[in-house]
């Protein structure tokens, strides 16, 4: 009986240790399995998603309404396809709502921000958001500022 209890305790200990490693592998590191939400799925095509990651929040007016569950590439249009899972509580999003990729703070993570539209029909499972705005890529922005500055400098001598 004594030996039995001892073995039981040790068995529990080893199982706990293995479970901890399992959690470190599945939950903490990059081996995560996706898709255990019960929300409805909506997709949106973006030209550029910047640094958006799976499981990033989807917000409407700053309130989290769902999260990104998958990121893929459309092989025809070469656009990024972002699949979002929206909480079934928020089932009255107009079909012409728009999605944009925003950054929380200057260095924060990126998330999807929704803007509600005005249509009477609502988004359902498998719906698509047509109006999208890509992520702001800082390098491109700086590049554009520089080209503007360069053209601005070279422009005045031509005018007189």
């Amino acid at each position, binding site marked *: 009986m004594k*030996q039995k209890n*001892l*073995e039981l*305790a*040790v068995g*529990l*200990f*080893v199982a*706990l*240790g*293995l*479970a*901890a*490693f399992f*959690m*470190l*592998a599945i*939950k*903490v*590191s*990059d*081996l*995560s399995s996706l898709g255990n939400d019960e929300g409805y799925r909506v997709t949106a095509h973006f030209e550029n998603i910047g640094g958006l*990651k*799976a*499981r*990033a*929040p989807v917000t409407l007016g700053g309130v*989290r309404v769902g*999260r990104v569950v998958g990121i893929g590439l459309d092989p025809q249009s070469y656009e990024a396809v972002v699949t979002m899972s929206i909480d079934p509580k928020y089932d009255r999003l107009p079909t012409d709502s728009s999605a944009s990729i925003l950054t*929380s*703070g*200057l*260095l*924060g*993570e990126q*998330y999807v921000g929704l803007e509600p539209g005005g249509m009477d029909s609502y988004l359902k499972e498998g719906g698509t958001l047509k109006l999208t705005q890509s992520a702001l890529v800082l390098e491109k922005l700086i590049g554009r500022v520089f080209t503007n500055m360069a053209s601005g400098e070279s422009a005045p001598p031509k005018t007189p």
Partner: protein
Amino acid sequence: MMASLAELGRFALDRLARLGRANLFLLQLLRALSFLFRRPGLLVKQLHAVGVLSLPIILVSGLFVGMVLGLQGYANLVDFGATSSLGTVVALSLIRELGPVLTALLYAGRAGSALTAEIGLMRATEQLASMQMMAVDPFPRVLAPRFLAGCIAVPLLTGIFTAVGILGGYLVAVVQLGVDGGSFWAQMQAKVQLLADVGNGVLIKSTVFGLVANWIALFEGYQAQPTSEGVSLATTRTVVDTSLAVLGLDFLLTALMFGEW
């Protein structure tokens, strides 16, 4: 002058001889391990002593270390609006450094000292000598099960410590401070790599620390002077030497594993 020089020489030779004895002791231990395939029951008893009974302190310290990391990380990250990286900070510091090192230090205090005292007293009360009188080798029966059990227990305890610590960080960050739970896990998963971080940090480091901690503990007990004073001295030395060895080795391993970053 000559006398003090001779003293230094004796000290150095003493240390060297001790190191040699420790290595021979480890060899003997490793050679005795195969006996455990025939008597796994011995292993179970020791796993209970060093593993199961160390669980409370590991669970509680892991939880609190994780919670403190969550609080401190939040206090620093909130200025930059980067609280969503809190998960990464907590997980990486626990997985790479704090989990293996703190578990090894706690193990040395909780189980290593007990091992030394047990073996030292067995020697002081001549239990080991009487086993040898009966032609029973104490290595396979007494020392090897304790050694192997310790080497199995430390990585498992490290895994538990790290997992509980991350849960503690989650508790403080998400439940108490209101960091978004999704980005807490998402950023963590994006930054923590299975092999480079969990494999190197938790698995390899803790295996090395477990080997060293148990080796030192058993050797100190086996070498202890057979007096009450000698046993107490050996117990102290186990904790001090293990802590120093673990911290030194940790620096070495970190430099090898993560040095190029």
